[in-house]
């Protein structure tokens, strides 16, 4: 089960934050096919946001084919996103690489710039 964190001052619409955090959880494997998303009631009780905002986010996720609403049961994950769950070997390699970057004296911005440059080279034409 995921827990949504709403940042009021991020400038990102609240429903978009829910969509993004759900996708992030799908990418990291924290949410997997068959898992139930929290109900609108559970989300708004914890975050005090408007229930329609949650429903709007879930409709958006449904439209993208990531989740499905089952009447009276809740909203369930249909498929996963990406191929990089939290425990994949690729992640371990990236961890190793990041540790090397730290050892080499790179700071966070250096690493981010390097990583973005490589991403741009290998994923030309795909939106970020």
């Amino acid at each position, binding site marked *: 089960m995921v827990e949504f964190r*709403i940042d*009021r001052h991020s400038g990102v619409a*609240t429903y978009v934050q829910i969509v993004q955090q759900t996708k992030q959880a799908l990418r990291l494997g924290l949410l997997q096919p068959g898992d139930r998303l929290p109900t609108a009631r559970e989300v708004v009780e*914890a975050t*005090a946001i*408007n*229930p329609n*905002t949650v429903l709007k986010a879930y409709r958006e996720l449904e439209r993208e084919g990531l989740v499905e609403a089952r009447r009276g049961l809740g909203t369930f994950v249909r498929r996963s996103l990406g191929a990089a769950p939290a425990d994949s070997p690729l992640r371990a390699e990236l961890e190793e690489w990041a540790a090397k970057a730290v050892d080499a004296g790179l700071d966070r911005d250096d690493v981010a710039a390097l990583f973005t440059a490589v991403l741009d080279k290998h994923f030309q034409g795909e939106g970020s």
Partner: protein
Amino acid sequence: MSDTALEATGLGKRFGRRGGWALRDAAFRLPAGRVCALVGPNGAGKSTLLALAAGLLPPTEGRLTVLGGTPAGARARVGFVAQDKPLYPQLTVAETLRMGADLNPERWDAATAEQVVAGGDLDPRSRIRSLSGGQRTRVALALALGKRPELLLLDEPMADLDPLARHELMGTLMAEAAQYGTTIVMSSHVVAELEDSCDHLLLAGSGRIRLAGEIDDLLAAHLRVSGAAESTDLSAHTVVESRVTGRQLTALIRPAGPLPGDLRTSVPSLEELVLAHLRNPGAPALSAAPAVTQGSAA
């Protein structure tokens, strides 16, 4: 069940024959199931409107329907928490809740009422008169929620509460709305406090309803624009507010057609929208609610 929680036409209230109008020419429609922010400065008519909706005051002119009927007829299905949180000071917390159960025999939801009280670490045996303002608010909200109303009217509900209790109780209200489709109207003069929780807005100013509608629709109907003061002509549009600083003009407008190409535009925030209307009482009112009363919204 009516699909309209509140509908006002030409609604006005004057206190005393010679008194000023606390509210005048109010016309709006609030669909059922919305969480509505009733916003405006002190003396704008917010409390008067809520008391009219609760059936505690008769209108001087015009009409107000509540859940499809008269305010008095709807009272059993309406929960109202007035600004001063009226409770019986000599009763204990537990006795107050028992009173709620006795007064609402068909609908009382003891679990919800007790949960709201329990969140505040309140001793059920303490007398209401010994409670702090925030604790009394909690008991008053417990009483109103325990009634399981279809329409919940809250006058400045969060004013006495600390930030933690505010967040918790707002969460409880939202959960109620999510589960039962309860329509909630809550007043405040702080817009930011309600922005995330509400999807509908009623803006009151000087006894008039200045803006009414879905917040998304109201925001979409306005634009913040800026451009060169000399060459910018906005006369084709409704200008809510405009200001010239040096050579630059900035304005909040309701566009009525295409804009000159050399303007920079952005969507206003809810707070900007509200403040611009309050600073400019002459700006025309806008009711963005769909005019249709019947039929369901998809």
